[in-house]
């Protein structure tokens, strides 16, 4: 399984702080995102649009490869400071 985390608007739209997901095929962050979006309409709402992705707490893109035990996060553009 892969540990998935949601933050801010993405978390609220998803209705969850995170979820454990099976490794997608191909094993990439982009495929994981597609897999989650097909899982429920709230996940689809949460993950469409301008969403950033992090792999093991480092910003990444859809092509990034993932493995069992990894942590993947989805969140909106940042607004701190």
């Amino acid at each position: 399984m892969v540990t998935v985390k949601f933050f801010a608007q993405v978390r609220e739209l998803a209705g969850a702080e995170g979820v454990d997901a099976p490794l997608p095929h191909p094993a990439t962050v982009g495929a994981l995102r597609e897999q989650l979006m097909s899982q429920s309409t709230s996940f689809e709402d949460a993950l469409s649009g301008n969403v950033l992705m992090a792999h093991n707490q480092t910003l990444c893109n859809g092509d990034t490869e993932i493995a069992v035990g990894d942590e993947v996060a989805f969140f909106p553009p940042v607004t701190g400071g």
Partner: protein
Amino acid sequence: MFARVQHDDFSQQTLYDELCVNAVPQGAGAIVTFTGLVRDFNAKGGIQGIELEYYPGMTESALDTLLQQATSRFDIVEAGIIHRVGKLANHAQIVWVGTASQHREQAFLAATFIMDTLKQSVPIWKKEWQGNQASWVAAKADDSTAAMRWLQSDKDNTCDNA
């Protein structure tokens, strides 16, 4: 260097003193601090406080990377960042940045750089309360991925090798 994410308020004097512990023995002659406060209004009118969410682990790591970048780009001897999270009232302190250098220009530039980059690239999200409603603040950066990718330039970038 020190970077912390915390809910509790911070003391100007305590953070200044903490910065000086390493800065003074290294010949610092110039200390610059920046403090961000919760403003009591936005474009739509008055607000009643904000709420800040972060990504435990990644946020601290982004702040550490930001301090390393500032140190390699500017001639500073010490720097620190404190960012609060959770619910904060109007006028509360949100963020503190301190830089120390032998020369004032570098201390000013480094502090400006840290704040500019922090706002674009550290995983923290802000909600503003108006009445009983809290709205997420919209990001200003047009290409937020590009803004954040900057933070990775010093790191072993496993993502781009994929």
